[in-house]
C-alpha cells in the first residue's frame, strides 16, 4: 500500500551509465565488460600456458636440446638453454594450473557466462554488480600472484596442479619451488576460489531471481542452463578447494601437520611434523578436482548445443533429455572423484564402490552425444566457423570420452594410472573439447560482442589446422599410455620407454604446429575487431534474447525496459507469417510447425 503513496521512482537500474573511461572499461559494473575482461584474461593465460607446453614438448622430444634464449629467462632452470628436470616439472605445474583454472574455468564459464547469462534471461545485469566486478578483480589478482611464482628465487612449485601432499606440504626440502613457490601457488588458488564463489553466487541468483517476464525455467536457453549447472558445481567445488588450500598454507607457514605424517626423512633429516594424513589432501582435492572437469566441459556442451541448434535450423531432438543428462553429469561428478585414487592406497573395496558411478557417467554422456548426432539427422546444417568447431567438439568429446571406459575400471587403472593414457583422456575431453567450445562460442558471439563479423576464411582455416593438429597431438598419447609410458617424466631414461621417443618427437612437432596455428585465431580476433564488416543485430538468425538487441548491446542491455518472452529458444524449423523459419523468444506470434510436415 505504501508503494502507492511513494513518489514516482526512476526505473530499476543496477548502476547508472558508465561516465568515465575507468568506470566504462576498467572497474566496470557492467556484466558485459566484465565478461570481456574475463575473456581477455583467458587469452593471456592460454597464450602463456601454450608457450610453457611448447617448452615441455621440446624437452620431451629432444631432452638435451639447448633452447636459444631460455637461459636468459631462467639461468637456473635452463643452464645453457637445456631444461633441467625440476624446471620441466615447474613448467608442467604452471601449464596445468594456468590452463585448468585460468582458461578452462574462466573462458567458457566466467567470460561467456558473464556476458550472455543476464542477457539470455532478459535481465539488465546481475543482482550484485559489485560482487561481479570483485569476482573478476579477485581472479586477476590470483593470476598475478600465480605468475609471480616465476620470479621467486626457487621458481614455481614442481608438485603438479594436483599438488599431492606431503610433497607439496613439507616446504623447500622437497625440492626447488616447494618453499615459497608452493605457498604462492596455494595462495593464488585460494584467491581464485573466492573469485569464482562470488561469480557463482551471482550466476545462480541471476537465473533464480532476474528472469524477465515470461522467461519460465522451461524457456531458458540451454546455455543459460549450462551456466546455471556449472555455477552450482562451482559453488560446492571451490568451497571445498579453498579449505584445502588454507590447510596447505598453514602446513607451510605455521608449522601445523594436517597433511604431513610422522617419520619423514629428507636429506637425512627427520622432519619436525607428525600425525598428518597424506590421503586427506587427495580426498579434498579430488572432491573439487573431478567436478572441476565438468565445470570446464558443461558450459562447452551448452555453447555447442546453442550453436548447433542455430546452425541446424532445428531444435535438439529433446532439450529436456539433454538438460537432465547435464544435471546427471553434474550430480555424478561428486560421487566419482575416488577414481583418481584407485591405486593411491584407499581401501581397495572403496575403489570398486567408486568405479560403478564412474562407469555410470558414460550413460548421460552417451545420451548427450547421441542427441547431438541424432539432431543432425534431417537438419539443414549451415557450415561456418562456429558450427565447424561445434561439430569438432562433438567428435573430440567422443574420442576423449571412450577412454573413460578404461579409466573407470580399477583393474585397468593398474596398467593405465598416471600414464599418458590419462593425459590423452583429459586433454581431449576436458582440454581440447572445451577449447573447441570456446572457439565455437567466440566465432558465434563475436558479432554480438563487438558489432563486427569475424573473417570466415581465416576462421575455417583455423578450424581445419586445429582439428587435424589436435588429433595428431592427443591420439598418440593414448598409445603411449597403453605402452606403459608414465606421465610427468622430465625425460625417458627407462629402457622400455626408449622405443616410444620417436612418437614423442612426432607429438612435439604436431604441438608446435598446432600451437602456431592459433596465431591465425589471435590475428583474426584483432583484425576483425577493428576491420571486420559491420554485424547486424541477428547475423545467425538466432532466437534467444541476445539477438533482439543491437550489436554491440547498449550498457543497459534492453534500453531500460525488460523484454517479455513468449517462447522457448527452440523455435527453429517453423514457418512464420513473414516466411522466416524461426521465431524470436520475445515475438508474440505463433507459427505452424513444419517439421516432418511431409
Amino acid at each position: 500500500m505504501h508503494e502507492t503513496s511513494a513518489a514516482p521512482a526512476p526505473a530499476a537500474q543496477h548502476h547508472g551509465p558508465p561516465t568515465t573511461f575507468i568506470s566504462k572499461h576498467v572497474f566496470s559494473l557492467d556484466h558485459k565488460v566484465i565478461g570481456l575482461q574475463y575473456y581477455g584474461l583467458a587469452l593471456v593465460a592460454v597464450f602463456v600456458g601454450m608457450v610453457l607446453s611448447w617448452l615441455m614438448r621440446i624437452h620431451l622430444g629432444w631432452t638435451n636440446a639447448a633452447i636459444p634464449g631460455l637461459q636468459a629467462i631462467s639461468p637456473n632452470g635452463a643452464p645453457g638453454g637445456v631444461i633441467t628436470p625440476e624446471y620441466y616439472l615447474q613448467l608442467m605445474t604452471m601449464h596445468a594450473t594456468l590452463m585448468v583454472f585460468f582458461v578452462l574455468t574462466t573462458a567458457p564459464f566466467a567470460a561467456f557466462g558473464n556476458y550472455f547469462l543476464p542477457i539470455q534471461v532478459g535481465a539488465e545485469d546481475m543482482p550484485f554488480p559489485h560482487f561481479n566486478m570483485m569476482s573478476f578483480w579477485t581472479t586477476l589478482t590470483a593470476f598475478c600472484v600465480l605468475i609471480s611464482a616465476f620470479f621467486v628465487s626457487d621458481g614455481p612449485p614442481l608438485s603438479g596442479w594436483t599438488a599431492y601432499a606431503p610433497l607439496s606440504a613439507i616446504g623447500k626440502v622437497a625440492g626447488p619451488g616447494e618453499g615459497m613457490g608452493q605457498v604462492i601457488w596455494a595462495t593464488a588458488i585460494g584467491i581464485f576460489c573466492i573469485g569464482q564463489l562470488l561469480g557463482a553466487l551471482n550466476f545462480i541468483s541471476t537465473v533464480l531471481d532476474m528472469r524477465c517476464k515470461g522467461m519460465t525455467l522451461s524457456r531458458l536457453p540451454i546455455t543459460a542452463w549450462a551456466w546455471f549447472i556449472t555455477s552450482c558445481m562451482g559453488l560446492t567445488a571451490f568451497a571445498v578447494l579453498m579449505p584445502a588450500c588454507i590447510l596447505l598454507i598453514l602446513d607451510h607457514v605455521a608449522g601445523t601437520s594436517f597433511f604431513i605424517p610422522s617419520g619423514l626423512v629428507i636429506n637425512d633429516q627427520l622432519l619436525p611434523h607428525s600425525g598428518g594424513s597424506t590421503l586427506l589432501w587427495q580426498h579434498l582435492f579430488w572432491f573439487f578436482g573431478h567436478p572441476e572437469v565438468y565445470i570446464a566441459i558443461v558450459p562447452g556442451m551448452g555453447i555447442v548445443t546453442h550453436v548447433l541448434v542455430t546452425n541446424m535450423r532445428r531444435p535438439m531432438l529433446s532439450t529436456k533429455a539433454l538438460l537432465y543428462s547435464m544435471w546427471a553429469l553434474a550430480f555424478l561428478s561428486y560421487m566419482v572423484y575416488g577414481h583418481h585414487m584407485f591405486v593411491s592406497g584407499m581401501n581397495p573395496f572403496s575403489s570398486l564402490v567408486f568405479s560403478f558411478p564412474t562407469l555410470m557417467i558414460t550413460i548421460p554422456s552417451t545420451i548427450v552425444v547421441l542427441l547431438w548426432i541424432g539432431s543432425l539427422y534431417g537438419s539443414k546444417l549451415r557450415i561456418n566457423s562456429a558450427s565447424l568447431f561445434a561439430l569438432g567438439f562433438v567428435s573430440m568429446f567422443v574420442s576423449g570420452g571412450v577412454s573413460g571406459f578404461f579409466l573407470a575400471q580399477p583393474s585397468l587403472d593398474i596398467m593405465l594410472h598416471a600414464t599418458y593414457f590419462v593425459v590423452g583422456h583429459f586433454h581431449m575431453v576436458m582440454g581440447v573439447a572445451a577449447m573447441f567450445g570456446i572457439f565455437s562460442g567466440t566465432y558465434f558471439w563475436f558479432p554480438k560482442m563487438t558489432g563486427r563479423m569475424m573473417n570466415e576464411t581465416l576462421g575455417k582455416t583455423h578450424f581445419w589446422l586445429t582439428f587435424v593438429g589436435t588429433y595428431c597431438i592427443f591420439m598418440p598419447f593414448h598409445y603411449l599410455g597403453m605402452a606403459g609410458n608414465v606421465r610427468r617424466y622430465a625425460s625417458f631414461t627407462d629402457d622400455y620407454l626408449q622405443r616410444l621417443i620417436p612418437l614423442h618427437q612426432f607429438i612435439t612437432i604436431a604441438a608446435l604446429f598446432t600451437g602456431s596455428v592459433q596465431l591465425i585465431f589471435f590475428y583474426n580476433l584483432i583484425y576483425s575487431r577493428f576491420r571486420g564488416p559491420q554485424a547486424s543485430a541477428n547475423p545467425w538468425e538466432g532466437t534467444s534474447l541476445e539477438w533482439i538487441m543491437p550489436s554491440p548491446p547498449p550498457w543497459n542491455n534492453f534500453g531500460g525496459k525488460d523484454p517479455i518472452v513468449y517462447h522457448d529458444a527452440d523455435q527453429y524449423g517453423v514457418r512464420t507469417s513473414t516466411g522466416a523459419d524461426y521465431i524470436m523468444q520475445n515475438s508474440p506470434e505463433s507459427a505452424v510447425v513444419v517439421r516432418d510436415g511431409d
Partner: protein
Amino acid sequence: MQMKHAVIAGLVMLGASALAVAGPSGGTVTGKVTYEGTPAKMKPIDMSKEPSCAKMYATPQLVETVVTGAGNSLENVVVYVSAGAPDEAAPSTAATFTQKGCRYIPHLLAFQVNQELKIINDDQTSHNIHPLPKLNREWNKSQPPGTPPISEKYDKAEFIPVKCNVHPWMHGTFAVLKNSHFAVTADGGSFSLANLPPGKYTITAWHESYGDQSQDVTISGTESKTVNFVFKAKPY
C-alpha cells in the same frame, strides 16, 4: 685471554706481512692422522639405478665416509689453522668439483671463503648438486649432461655436506676455510702446512664421521713442528 689472542693475532699479522715481503719462508707443521679401534666396514654402492654409471665399474664402489689406509692412517681429514692465522683473500684460481661415474671427485673439497667453486658434470646423466649449509645460502641446482660448469662462492667458513638428489649415494663435503693454511690427508694420512710465520697457532683436524680435534703449536723462525692426530673409530 681474548686480549692476548688479539695481540698475538696483531703481531702475527705484522710478522706475516713482513715475511710476505721477505718471500716464502717460515715454519712448517707436518704430521699424520690415524685412528684407533675398528672403523665401520665401508658398504658397497649399488648403482644399478643409473646404468650409465654402473657400467663404469667392474667392482662396486665403496662409500667414503671413512677411508683408511696402511698403518691405521685416515684419509679425507681436513687439517687447517683454526686460530692464530689472519683471514686471507681468496686466490684467483677456482676449486673444481667433478661429478664422474656418479661419484664426487674429490670426495672432500677444501677451498677458501669467496674462492670460486667450479662444478663439472662429466657424466651422461643429469646430476643435481644440493649442498646443505647452515650458515651460507642454500641452493639446489640440477646439471644436465653437456651444460656449462656451475660457478658458485661461499662467503662464510663452514663444513658443508653435499648431496645429489637424483643419486642418493652421492655424498661429499665442501670445507670452506678462512685462510690458505690447510691440507687434506690422502693415502697414508700425512699432511703438511708450510709457510707458517712465527706465532702461536691452533691446528684443527676435521673428519666428516669422527668430528674434530685441535692442538696448539708455536712456531718460531723456520722450524718444522710435528703434530699428530688420532681419532677414535666406531664399528657402527
